[in-house]
């Protein structure tokens, strides 16, 4: 079978800078930050040095039936909401959705920490059988690492394959990449792909202990993170969710589906070494493999959505890798500057924001990038909103554990 073309026919995101296209585009164009003060959690929050968090502020009106709600923690609410919006937007008929040719690739970094926390409280306080029985039959279903994917499958009756990567910051870029491969090689005709993570202070504590979190802007949350800026002092943990519908091109065209863009390439590799430190060789290789997979040259890429978490070393290594592979031609934007690091959702949210920029012919600037670190200066940073067509974009993400991904998308002309 010849490789099939794969297009994106719907997308939706819940993010710290808005839920849905209009609000997100407005935030990007006005340079609005979604970073707020860290909420108190009555547990470990008071010990955390970093007091900032990329927060979903707008209330979401969920309309899920009880038989679905009972197996959902907060992360699954996010996931099912964006999945519902994407299914509706795609216009795929119900018989296709449930027919087995639509699969799901969706994940989170560790299921629902809110539910896990409640389980631990019971474990630690268990003194008798009655306490033990408070652990509900559904607690595992709410908290397990593939809770997002299976709750989506249950809610919408989707019967195709399930892929649920849980590779930290590359979770949803892998979802899109593995979904792309499933459609490209004919294993499925469409894949609903994405990732989600809920508000969680434990993740902040983990990065805080590794000295990777921003602490210098606790009194001015919107001033951090500061990717590529000389004053950057670490990442900001965030919450959010995003989903895209991938479809085989001819199938989408035949049914008159709206085509938002085409996925033209994907690469994923591992550093094969240190699980924390950024790795120039590994990342450089990922970007090269992405171009090879897409069968395009570096000069064809006109926008790069950098992973750029605003850690000291991570940004330098990434800028060097971009400089080596792409030179200084493509514009580079660090979308985490708007909302922090949405963890499992970052790859898909950054893909969606890139699609919006493609459609609206603008490139959002990296906010808080006021004084470019000279060690990151070899690439073409965007510091002011520009009207500019985007035809081909690379979205790159790198995860704890040494996992790297590169996605390439193109506007269909």
């Amino acid at each position, binding site marked *: 079978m010849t490789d099939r073309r794969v297009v994106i026919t719907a997308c939706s995101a819940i993010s710290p800078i808005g839920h849905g296209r209009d609000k997100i585009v407005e935030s990007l164009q006005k340079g609005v930050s979604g970073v707020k003060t860290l909420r108190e959690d009555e547990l470990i929050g008071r010990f955390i040095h970093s007091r900032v968090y990329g927060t979903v502020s707008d209330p979401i009106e969920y309309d899920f*039936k*009880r*038989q679905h709600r*009972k*197996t959902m923690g907060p992360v699954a609410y996010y996931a099912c909401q964006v999945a519902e919006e994407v299914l509706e937007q795609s216009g795929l008929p119900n018989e296709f959705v449930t027919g087995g040719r639509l699969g799901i690739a969706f994940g989170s970094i560790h299921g629902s920490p809110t539910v896990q926390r409640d389980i631990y409280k019971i474990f630690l306080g268990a003194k008798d*059988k009655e306490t033990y*029985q408070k652990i*509900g*039959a*559904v607690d595992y*279903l709410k908290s397990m690492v593939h809770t997002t994917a299976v709750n989506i499958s249950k809610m919408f009756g989707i019967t195709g394959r399930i892929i649920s990567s849980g590779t930290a910051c590359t979770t949803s870029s892998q979802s899109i990449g593995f979904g792309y491969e499933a459609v490209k090689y004919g294993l499925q005709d469409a894949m609903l792909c994405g990732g989600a993570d809920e508000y969680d202070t434990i993740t902040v504590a983990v990065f805080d202990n590794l000295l990777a979190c921003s602490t210098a802007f606790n009194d001015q949350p919107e001033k951090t993170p500061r990717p590529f800026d000389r004053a950057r002092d670490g990442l900001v943990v965030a919450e959010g969710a995003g989903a895209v519908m991938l479809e085989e091109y001819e199938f989408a065209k035949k049914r008159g589906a709206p085509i938002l863009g085409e996925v033209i390439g994907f690469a994923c590799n591992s550093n094969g070494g240190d699980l924390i430190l950024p790795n120039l060789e590994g990342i450089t290789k990922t970007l090269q493999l992405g171009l090879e997979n897409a069968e395009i040259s570096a000069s064809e890429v006109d926008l790069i959505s950098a992973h750029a978490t605003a850690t000291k070393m991570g940004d330098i290594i990434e800028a060097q890798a971009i400089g080596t592979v792409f030179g200084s031609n493509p514009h580079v934007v660090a979308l985490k500057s708007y909302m922090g690091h949405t963890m499992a959702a970052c790859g898909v949210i950054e893909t969606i924001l890139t699609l919006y920029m493609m459609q609206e012919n603008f490139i959002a600037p990296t906010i808080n990038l006021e004084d470019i670190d000279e060690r990151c200066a070899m690439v073409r940073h965007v510091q002011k909103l520009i009207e500019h067509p985007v035809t081909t974009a690379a979205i790159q993400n790198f995860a704890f554990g040494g996992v790297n991904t590169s996605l390439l998308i193109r506007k269909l002309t």
Partner: protein
Amino acid sequence: MTRQDIENEVRDIFLREFEVENPELDVNLREAYGFDSIDAIDLLLEIEKFLGSELTRDEKKQAMDIRTMRQIIDYIEMLAEKRHAAQG
């Protein structure tokens, strides 16, 4: 404990735990109200609380064929009588 007491309690459980108001006595609960395997496990826990005693594994297995409200009431009535007889 009368059969009516049991029925009232089961209706309370269905409303409180499963958001089902006044379920009919003889309809298939799965088909009519989306009552599934997870609900069945939760229902057994509620029955234990109601009876004030733990169900044995065999008693739980007996519940696997239950499909209707009437069967649930029959089941609890049987358990209550068994416990009453054991106490007497």
